[in-house]
């Protein structure tokens, strides 16, 4: 058999324009999230009921909402909930999924059966519906939503980790480690994990985008953050009625959601391609 593969050569290191834009945008969002009070022109909470909803003016660059609050400041402040929650969801879900996937994929047998039955069950559920109902009934707002999403995301992530493990498991370098008598624990964490980690990281970025969209969605239904919190999804919930007077109240947070999610999706895709060569 002469189907000998060439040793991998160095990859093109050029970041194309759209990727650079993604990283720039994420940088902007992160900066807004951290330094929001310093950057925002006004407090996001100050209500000016006598002013009400007005289109953009010299004083309020993006106009005001129904309660007279500055839309731009609320958008800038909203960057924090747009980042913190999704990061915790993505990282949390994958941390759990990695353990479950490693055990399920490598040990097989009843461990695998039990875990995969649970995964199959979770995947059969209409996830968004479950999130809406559970968060709505239990109450608790943002952090309940985060917890529910972590549980919901763990299932498909476990499947992803498991199939990555299953790809590595029959390879001869694992066989060699086994025949040398290397412990199962060592094989899982020193041999298999480092080889699936890059793939996992790419998926974490994609999960982040998906979590952002879902959290914003829950807030959009009034089920996420507490009323009054500056949050992009919440702003969509609050500003539905000012569509005709100050559409920016909707378009600005909506645009930020899309752009942030797009950036993380593209970054995730790029990581995915770079790491599966």
């Amino acid at each position: 058999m002469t189907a000998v593969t060439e040793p991998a050569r160095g990859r093109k290191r050029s970041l194309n324009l759209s990727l650079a834009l993604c990283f720039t945008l994420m940088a902007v969002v992160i900066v807004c999230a951290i330094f929001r009070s310093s950057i925002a022109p006004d407090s996001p909470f100050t209500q000016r009921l006598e002013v009400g909803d007005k289109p953009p003016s010299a004083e309020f660059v993006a106009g005001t909402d129904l309660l007279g609050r500055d839309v731009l400041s609320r958008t800038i402040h909203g960057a924090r909930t747009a980042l913190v929650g999704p990061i915790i969801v993505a990282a949390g879900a994958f941390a759990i999924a990695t353990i479950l996937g490693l055990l399920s994929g490598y040990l097989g047998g009843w461990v695998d059966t039990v875990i995969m039955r649970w995964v199959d069950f979770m995947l059969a559920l209409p996830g968004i519906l479950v999130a809406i109902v559970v968060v709505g009934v239990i109450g608790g707002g943002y952090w309940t939503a985060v917890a529910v999403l972590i549980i919901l995301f763990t299932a498909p992530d476990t499947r992803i980790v498991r199939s990555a493990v299953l790809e590595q498991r029959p390879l001869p370098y694992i066989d060699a480690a086994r025949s040398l008598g290397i412990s199962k624990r060592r094989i899982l964490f020193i041999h298999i994990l480092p080889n699936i980690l890059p793939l996992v990281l790419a998926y974490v970025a994609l999960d982040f985008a998906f979590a952002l969209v879902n959290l914003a969605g829950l807030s959009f239904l009034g089920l996420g953050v507490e009323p009054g919190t500056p949050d992009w999804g919440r702003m969509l919930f609050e500003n539905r009625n000012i569509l005709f007077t100050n559409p920016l109240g909707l378009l600005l947070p909506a645009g930020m959601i899309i752009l942030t999610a797009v950036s993380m999706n593209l970054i995730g895709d790029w990581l995915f391609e770079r790491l599966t060569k």
Partner: protein
Amino acid sequence: MMREGVAGLILRRIAVAIPLLFLISLGVFALVHIAPGDPVRALLGTRASDPETLNNLREKYHLNDPFIVQYGKWLWQVLQGDLGRSINGNRKVWNAIAERGSITIALSLLGTAIVLVFGIGLGMIAAFKRGTRIDRAMVMFGVFGISSPAFVTGIFLLYFFGVVLGWFPTFGAGDRNFVDRLWHLTLPALALALSVMAIVVKITRAAMIEELDKDYVTFARARGLSATRITFAYVLRNALIPVITAAGIVVVGLLASAIYVEVTFALPGLGSLTVDAVQKRDIPLIQGTTLVFSCFVVAINLIIDVVYTLIDPRIRFGKVES
């Protein structure tokens, strides 16, 4: 001999779906109990009551019985078609669902049609024009689609086509006639389709690109078969299998987006009913809608599973040594 195998597989799939439905119904039933506070309060809502009414209610809903008995009695009721009564307005839950179901179904069908036709079509075009500007545009469109949840897309569509251009109505489902209904549902269906379509485009494109590189395409070309035949009998047929596998995700996504879209466009459908119920803590109504939605999802996934089993001959036939 082949028929038995297929029927057996279908039965096995159904057998798996049934315990799933039971588990879901259990979860739905348990909602009453996981709501913070006294279950009676959850059932009553905000209406004040004296201890005697409370006790009557407890008797009526069997709240003094052990959990399993309560579940059994509730399940029996459900299987007979009685989903309880809504807290607000005391209407039968089933009636509320039935009258709104048609809108959700119409919206979903329209959305699915757009998703399938354009999703697969655009995916195919992107795969054939791999690497060109058209392909890159499709990919970018795909990424934006996946990143824009239906409520966000809905808002943009609403603004540009409803407010600025005034081409479409911005709320309601249109009751006058079929065309009016269609006109009202166009923007919502589009919003619904766009976010899900992006996934279909991405998967179709990836599947077709993978197939285009395969040996059997080279062999088919080497034998001089026409491009049409190769595209459809070889590439598309093989690429459709991963697409259909992903159909399950697509359906769930469609359903979730339907909920958001109905809220955005103020459509009186099942989705907005559910959200309303959740916001108002109307437990029996929540239970009813969640159960109906879940059954629907499980049924669709089952159908997709069966379709997948039928079209992939590798599952139907075993390997035979010659």
